[in-house]
C-alpha cells in the first residue's frame, strides 16, 4: 500500500433517534468506540481528530461537540486536528483528514459529526435555539424576509429547475419514496413506515415545491469515520476503503447569489482528480437534506445531462437497490435521519465492504460516491475498495 494514499478503516454510529436522553458527548464516545472496534484500533493509536463545523456555543443543538471536547474527554494524544465551518461542506472534514494522512501529519484520524437538533428542541434551556437580536453576515440577506430555513433557499433552486427543465413533483417524489423503501431495510434508520406516491402528493407543503417528505428531520446521533494513512494499514483489521478522490468548491458563498447548488462545480472537479469515470461507479450516497439535492448531484457528477435529473429518476427503478445506479441505499437523510452528511460516507463504506445486510447492493460493489452539501457549499468523496 502506498503511503500517499488515504483509507477509511473504521466506521461507527451511535444510537440514532429523536429526542435521545444520552448526552451528545456520550453519543460521540459511543460512535468512536464502535469505529475503533471496527478498525481494530485502540485509543492510543489515534493521532488526529477532524470535524465539521466544530462546537458552536450559540447553536449547540446544531453542533454540540468539537475536537477539543473529544481530545480532552478521551485523553487522546493528537499530532493534528481541525474543525470548522468554513470548509467544503460536511464531508470536507474527511477530505481534510485524507490530505493530512497523505502528507504524514497523522496516521489515524477520527472524523466525526454529532447532531443533537431534536433533543435541543425539546430541551431549550440546556440547548437554546439560535436567537439573535440582529442578523449579520449572509443571514442578513435572507432572514429579514423570513427565508429562515435552507428549505426556502433550496426550494428556489427546485422551482427554477421545474420551470426551466420540466422537473415534476412526481419525479421529485422518487427521491423520498426510494429513501423510505431503503430505510425499511436499515435497522438503524429512524423512518420505519413505507411511503406511497399518494401519501407524498397529499402531504402538507413546507415551502413549494417541497412538501413534508422532501425535507429531512432533526435527529440526534453521532457518526464517526476513521481515516488512516496508506502505510499504517498493517495496524488495522477493518476492511480498508480507499479515498480515491475528493473535491469541494464554492462559487458564490451566499445562498442568495449562487446560480445553482455547488454540486455542479464540485462534480466536474471530482473527475479531474481521478482516472475513474461516472461509468465506474456502482452506487451513490447523495446528500438529501431536501429531495431536490440528489438531482443536482446526478447532474453535477455527469450521471445525466444538466436538466435531465428528473427524467433520470422517473419511476424510481434506476435508483432502487436493484437498479442501475442504487442511490441512498440506507435511506439517506430523508429515511435514516439527518446525520448531516457523514451518514453518506458511513453507508458508502458499509456497502463497499458488503456489510449492508438486507439492503446490500448485489454484485460486490467496488466504487461509490458520497456527497454532502446542497447549497453553494459542496463536497464529494470517491471511495474505492481495491
Amino acid at each position, binding site marked *: 500500500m502506498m503511503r500517499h494514499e488515504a483509507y477509511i478503516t473504521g466506521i461507527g454510529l451511535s444510537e440514532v433517534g429523536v429526542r435521545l436522553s444520552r448526552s451528545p458527548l456520550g453519543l460521540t464516545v459511543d460512535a468512536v468506540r464502535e469505529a475503533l472496534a471496527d478498525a481494530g484500533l485502540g485509543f492510543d493509536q489515534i493521532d488526529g481528530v477532524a470535524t465539521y463545523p466544530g462546537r458552536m456555543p450559540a447553536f449547540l443543538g446544531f453542533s454540540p461537540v468539537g475536537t477539543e471536547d473529544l481530545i480532552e474527554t478521551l485523553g487522546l494524544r493528537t499530532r493534528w486536528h481541525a474543525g470548522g465551518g468554513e470548509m467544503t461542506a460536511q464531508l470536507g472534514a474527511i477530505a481534510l483528514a485524507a490530505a493530512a494522512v497523505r502528507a504524514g501529519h497523522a496516521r489515524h484520524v477520527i472524523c466525526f459529526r454529532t447532531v443533537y437538533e431534536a433533543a435541543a428542541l425539546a430541551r431549550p434551556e440546556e440547548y437554546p435555539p439560535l436567537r439573535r437580536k440582529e442578523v449579520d453576515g449572509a443571514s442578513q440577506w435572507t432572514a429579514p*424576509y423570513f427565508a429562515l430555513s435552507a428549505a426556502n433557499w433550496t426550494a428556489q433552486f427546485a422551482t427554477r429547475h421545474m420551470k426551466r427543465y420540466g422537473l415534476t413533483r412526481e419525479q421529485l417524489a422518487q427521491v423520498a419514496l426510494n429513501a423510505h423503501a431503503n430505510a425499511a431495510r436499515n435497522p438503524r434508520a429512524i423512518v420505519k413506515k413505507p411511503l406511497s406516491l399518494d401519501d407524498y402528493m397529499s402531504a402538507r407543503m413546507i415551502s413549494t415545491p417541497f412538501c413534508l417528505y422532501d425535507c429531512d428531520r432533526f435527529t440526534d446521533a453521532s457518526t464517526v469515520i476513521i481515516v488512516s494513512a496508506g502505510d499504517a494499514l498493517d495496524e488495522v483489521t477493518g476492511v480498508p476503503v480507499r479515498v480515491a478522490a475528493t473535491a469541494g468548491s464554492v462559487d458564490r458563498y451566499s445562498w442568495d447569489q449562487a446560480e445553482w447548488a455547488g454540486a455542479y462545480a464540485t462534480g466536474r472537479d471530482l473527475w479531474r482528480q481521478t482516472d475513474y469515470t461516472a461509468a465506474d461507479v456502482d452506487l451513490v450516497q447523495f446528500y438529501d437534506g431536501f429531495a431536490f439535492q440528489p438531482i443536482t448531484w446526478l447532474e453535477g457528477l455527469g450521471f445525466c445531462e444538466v436538466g435531465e435529473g428528473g427524467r433520470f429518476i422517473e419511476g424510481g427503478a434506476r435508483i432502487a437497490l436493484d437498479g442501475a445506479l442504487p442511490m441512498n441505499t440506507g435511506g439517506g437523510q430523508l429515511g435514516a435521519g439527518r446525520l448531516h452528511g457523514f451518514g453518506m460516507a458511513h453507508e458508502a463504506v458499509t456497502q463497499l465492504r458488503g456489510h449492508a445486510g438486507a439492503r446490500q447492493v448485489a454484485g460486490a460493489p467496488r466504487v461509490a460516491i458520497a456527497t454532502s452539501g446542497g447549497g453553494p457549499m459542496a463536497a464529494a468523496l470517491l471511495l474505492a475498495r481495491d
Partner: protein
Amino acid sequence: MSVPRPRPKLDADNRAFWTGGAEGKLNITHCADCGEFTHPPRPVCRHCRSENVAPKSVAGTGRVDSYTVNHQPWMPGLDTPFVIARVALDDAPGVYLTSNIVGCPVDAVDIGDAVQVRFEQQDDIWYPLFGKAV
C-alpha cells in the same frame, strides 16, 4: 406577516442598502472603475478588485429569478403562506435580492414576472420588498 422582521445589523458596508429606502432609493454597491456591481456590499469590487466603490441608486425594477411559497411557520406568530423570491435587478447585472413579493395572491407569482421595489419601514430599516409591476 404579523411578527417583526429580523433586523439586519447595520455597518459601514450595508448601511446604504438597508436605509436607502428613506429617500426612496435602492442602493447597490457599484464600481466607478469597471462599472460592475458587487452584492452583498463589500469595500472592494469583486470583479476588478478596485476600492473605488460606492452605493449607486438603481431603478428598482427587476424580474423574478425564482421563488417559493412558504407555508411553514418558522417562528411563532408568522402568518403563512407568503412568497419568498429571488429578484434579478434590471440595471444591476449579476445582482440578486432575496425578498418578498407582496400585494398579490401567492399563486399569482411566476418566474420571469416583472416586479417593482417598494419599501417597508421598521424603525430605521427600510426593507426593500417587491410588488408585481403594473
